[in-house]
């Protein structure tokens, strides 16, 4: 009896190994660290980042893993709290001994953890955090999203060159992202011949835009450019339409979310925004990701998710090409040329900053569609020396 049991177990084990079909089963998986704000006010973005990172890892493992080893995502919640972020960064380095790290988080957690990973020699790929200091912490930190300067410049191209706006008002959210992006927008818009008739700053979390937008009533205005996130962005467009302002409304990747459409309601119609995810991109990698995300999350994909997905894939590419040694991974990512990311073809990384076209999307019939692609090298090349 006992013997039969042993035999049965052995058969099961062999079957299990056979079905897994991976030689990797004999080896430890490659660990990739991951953090995002899974709880707290930013939890919706955290969830999007996590779903997308998991999709990327599932795809990698389904295709046989990296260098014959499976990949394991080590997930932590930074709660958008710098103490939490520092603690988890140390855990990823010392306890989990990850081969590389992906940030699916905002600027603040990415910025405080970058020096820790840099010191420990752990390669880092940042999905969408915008603060310029993130990539300055070390030579092996790469950013898949645009710098604010690039996005602002591209938004100005879209506003002035494509939408022919001559008189523009600017509403800026009072943080690094807003300030840098709006400054770049204003500079480029002026250079292209537009007039900035109003510059106003509001604080993050502002809900009441009546006072700001009432100031814009009764003067000729072609376009209102706002750096905002979906909560504020939705309030801006609703209030603008409520007050009867007819100017075009252009936002940034901050409003790239199905939530924006929901909160803004009918006022979202015709709104344009700069982002890196083009839903109408016919490339199979894009359409496949959009489909998988919809299936996994139950809602449409957003910029945060797509960027984080790409960040995992970029790190995985580095490991596949270079191995598990940090320097080789960095070299492999730095050598990337014309890489087909979901968020656009990456021309290259320069000092960790990406060069790729900027997408402009528009809301039409309640759906996010393609409006324009800004690929003017003068605009999309990151300002790094």
């Amino acid at each position, binding site marked *: 009896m006992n013997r039969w049991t042993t035999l049965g177990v052995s058969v099961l084990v062999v079957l299990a190994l056979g079905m897994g079909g991976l030689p990797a089963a004999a080896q430890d998986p490659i660990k990739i660290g991951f953090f995002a704000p899974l*709880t*707290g*006010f930013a*939890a*919706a973005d955290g*969830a999007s980042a996590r779903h997308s990172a998991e999709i990327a890892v599932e795809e990698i493992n389904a295709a046989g893993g990296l260098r014959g080893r499976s990949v394991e995502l080590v997930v932590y919640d930074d709660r958008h709290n710098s103490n939490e972020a520092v603690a988890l960064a140390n855990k990823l380095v010392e306890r989990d001994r990850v081969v590389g790290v992906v940030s699916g988080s905002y600027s603040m957690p990415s910025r405080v953890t970058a020096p820790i990973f840099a010191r420990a020699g752990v390669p880092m790929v940042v999905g969408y955090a915008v603060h310029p200091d993130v990539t300055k912490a070390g030579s092996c930190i790469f950013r898949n999203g645009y710098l604010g300067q690039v996005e602002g410049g591209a938004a100005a191209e879209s506003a002035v060159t494509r939408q022919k706006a001559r008189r523009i008002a600017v509403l800026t959210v*009072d943080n690094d992202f807003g300030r840098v992006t709006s400054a770049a927008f204003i500079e480029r818009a002026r250079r292209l011949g537009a007039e900035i008739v109003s510059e*106003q*700053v509001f*604080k993050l*979390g*502002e*809900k*009441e835009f*009546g*006072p*700001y937008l*009432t*100031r814009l*009533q*009764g003067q000729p205005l072609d376009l209102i450019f706002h750096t905002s996130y979906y*909560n504020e962005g*939705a*309030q801006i467009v*609703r209030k603008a339409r*409520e*007050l*009867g302002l007819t100017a075009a409304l252009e936002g940034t990747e901050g409003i790239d979310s199905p*939530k924006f459409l*929901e*909160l*803004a*309601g009918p006022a979202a119609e015709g709104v344009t925004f700069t982002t890196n995810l083009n839903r109408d991109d016919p490339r199979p990698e894009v359409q496949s990701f959009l489909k998988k995300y919809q299936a996994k999350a139950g809602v449409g994909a957003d910029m945060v998710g797509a960027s984080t997905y790409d960040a995992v894939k970029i790190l995985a590419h580095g490991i596949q090409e270079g191995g598990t040694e940090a320097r080789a991974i960095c070299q492999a990512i730095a050598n990337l040329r014309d890489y087909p990311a979901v968020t656009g073809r990456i021309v290259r990384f320069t000092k960790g900053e990406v060069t790729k076209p900027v997408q402009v999307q528009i809301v039409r019939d309640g759906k996010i569609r393609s409006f324009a692609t800004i690929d003017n090298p003068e605009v999309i090349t990151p300002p790094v020396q």
Partner: protein
Amino acid sequence: MLAQQLVNGLTVGSLYALMALGLTMVYGVLRVLHIAHAAVFTLGAYAGLAGFGLTGSFWLALAAAMLAAVAAGLAMERWVYWPLLGQPPIATLIASIGLFIGLEEVYRIVAGPQPYAFQVPLGLGDVRLGPVLVTAPQLLVMLVTAVLLGALWLFLTHTALGLALRAVSQDRDMAAACAMNVRTVVRLNFALGSALAGAAGMLVGIYYNSVSPTMGDIAGYKGLAIIVLGGLGSIPGTVLGGLVVGVAETLLIGIVEVPFPRDAWAFLAMIAVFLLRPQGLLGR
């Protein structure tokens, strides 16, 4: 533009007043700062949203919001504030803060962290008074606030219960000595204040088309500044305080354009009141 900004300010101010009334009423009878009142406000928004989803009627949804808020307010009185009465005020304050944080997390776990849209066909049109535009949502907020405040005023000044409520608020011990059932009055107080907060929560949800677990944060701390400004425990003072803060913030942003966060103004006003007129605008 000044008139238009006044309309903007009065709308926001109405919402502040509705929210802060419960705070000042509870302070009036129990002398505690009811921080968790902001969680009652948020509950009203969620209950209104659920009620509207189920019934499709604005008025039934408003009733649901107010009823849920009353239930929550009474439960807090029963299990937190009344048992802690007689403890040092700091104990009640800490319990109240804990309750607020805990409830926000409950909302997040139950409803999810992301905001919900709250779209209600209002059946109201925009109103144009010369150059001034009062939008349909603004009209709704001001009308509902006026009706609720009017009802509260009638209740307080024309009913025996209202009189009892004012008596307990003036001197709890003396009211008890006059054989009033203080506990009943305290409960009534929580019920009324919570109902107003529930209505405010739902109106804020509709006005901004957004209901989220943390929507009570700003309303909560600004409410404190408003009741101090108006005179702690003073009901007319709180209404005035809410309107003053709403209008002042709006004008400061909309006309003067001071590079200063709007939420700071309420607190500057509060500090000024503490220094110059500690009893508040209409306090005794």
